């Protein structure tokens, strides 16, 4: 009796995930535009949950669920995810009552929070499927450093700049922003990457370099 077996799909290494293979053609396509829009949509809904449920004030939250879309999206979809991660807080903050120009002033913080994990995974060739302790470590450090930047920028530059806080109350907002992002990141980012990266890296939407 003969049996037919399906050949097992070759497992990609972390190096291969981020390297364009010989003969492989990658270009910007409609799917990247679509994925940006979808990430803004998911981020809007998920981010609003955090903005409305756990507010500290002026768009700062104790537990900001939007960080998952911001960081996981940028790891998978490169600068498309970064663009989405920079834009969607505008909407989620707006419906939570944050004034327009305060949301606008948060743009650098949101950009760095989205960009840094994407850069770290590409630069250090970390596996988005989180196969080793090194991958977990890189993600954790990227989350901490990017959230630290956001936590310093937003209260110190934005809220102090608008005169909304006194120097003495800045630490509450710095820790609120930092803790709200890092705790939510720990809860969501690891599981999302672990659960879905294996599928995402094989889709045409996955971005190996920055744009494609």
């Amino acid at each position, binding site marked *: 009796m003969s049996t037919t077996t399906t050949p097992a799909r070759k497992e990609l290494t972390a190096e291969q995930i981020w390297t364009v293979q010989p003969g492989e053609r990658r270009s910007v396509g409609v799917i990247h535009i679509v994925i940006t829009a979808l990430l803004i*949509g998911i981020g809007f809904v998920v981010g609003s949950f955090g903005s409305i449920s756990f507010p500290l004030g*002026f768009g700062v939250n104790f537990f900001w669920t939007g960080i998952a879309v911001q960081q996981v999206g940028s790891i998978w979809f490169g600068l498309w995810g970064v663009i989405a991660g920079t834009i969607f807080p505008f909407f989620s903050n707006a419906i939570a009552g*944050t004034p327009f120009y305060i949301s606008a002033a948060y743009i650098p913080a949101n950009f760095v929070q989205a960009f840094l994990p994407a850069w770290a995974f590409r630069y250090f060739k970390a596996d988005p499927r989180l196969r080793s302790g090194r991958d977990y470590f890189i993600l954790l450090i990227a989350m901490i450093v990017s959230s630290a930047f956001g936590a310093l920028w937003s209260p110190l530059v934005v809220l102090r700049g608008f005169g909304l806080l006194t120097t003495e109350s800045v630490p509450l907002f710095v820790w609120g922003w930092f803790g709200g992002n890092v705790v939510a990141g720990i809860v969501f980012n690891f599981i999302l990457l672990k659960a879905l990266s294996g599928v995402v890296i094989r889709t045409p939407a996955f971005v190996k370099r920055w744009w494609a």
Partner: protein
Amino acid sequence: MNKTMLGYVPKESPIYAVHPFVKLYFLLIVSLFPMFVAAPEWNFLLLVFILALMVISRVDIRIVRIYIPVAISMGSIILISYTILGGRHPEFQVIFNLFGLPIYWERVRDAMVVYFRILPMIATMVFFLSTSRERDIIVAMRTIRLPFVVTYVFAMALRSAGMVLEDFQIVRQAEQARGFDPTGKPLTYKIRKYIMYMIPLFALSLRRSEEFTNALVARGYAFTGEASHVKRADYVLTHYTFKTHDAIFTTLITLAFIALLIARYGLHYFSLDHSWFIQWLHAVLS
């Protein structure tokens, strides 16, 4: 009232006769006004003016009630930040002691100034969200000649937010059907289990991205290369014309802003020294 992705808008309203660009321009310019005004009474007047515009626009004022907790929480944070967390300043005037903590007049005054700056900014945002349908925002973006792809991404993002909400309900019902019941469970449990919604939501969105792309490609949409240079018919703009009254409103907003700048920096109006409210508050608290 009609539900939009960003809020509730009236079914019929005189504001719909105004071009969407004017509403966007109002949001962008009038949000700046409180930054140049220190005297709280003027910012309060601006707040009343925006609320009056909402009434004229037939916005259901019950919508504003949704934002009252936001306004109260922001007010409380500002007041606590300036008074209780404001530190000790021997050079300031103590108006009373709260459990041994000195509350300074200068801190209370600054908290009031900041709070009355934030309120009209929130009101301007609420006014925009309560009078602009999704299509209005897209028309405003097309009017200021933003590239087609930017407008398209925005429109798709709003559409996909609606789909994500639908997906969220579907996933929730599916999990309830399998026996998941977070009722009465602590908040930490609910937060941890929130991931059970996130994974299916992401997975569904990835699948949808391929469906969306196939539909767009089949219709000949392209955002790069030769095909993207084809001039598109701005169908949505054919429904909106920029009329004389829109030009008048735009000019009035611009002139009001210029007048504000002249009054603030040329004539030194709107400062705390000229504020009767601050003088009255000082007399009451001292």
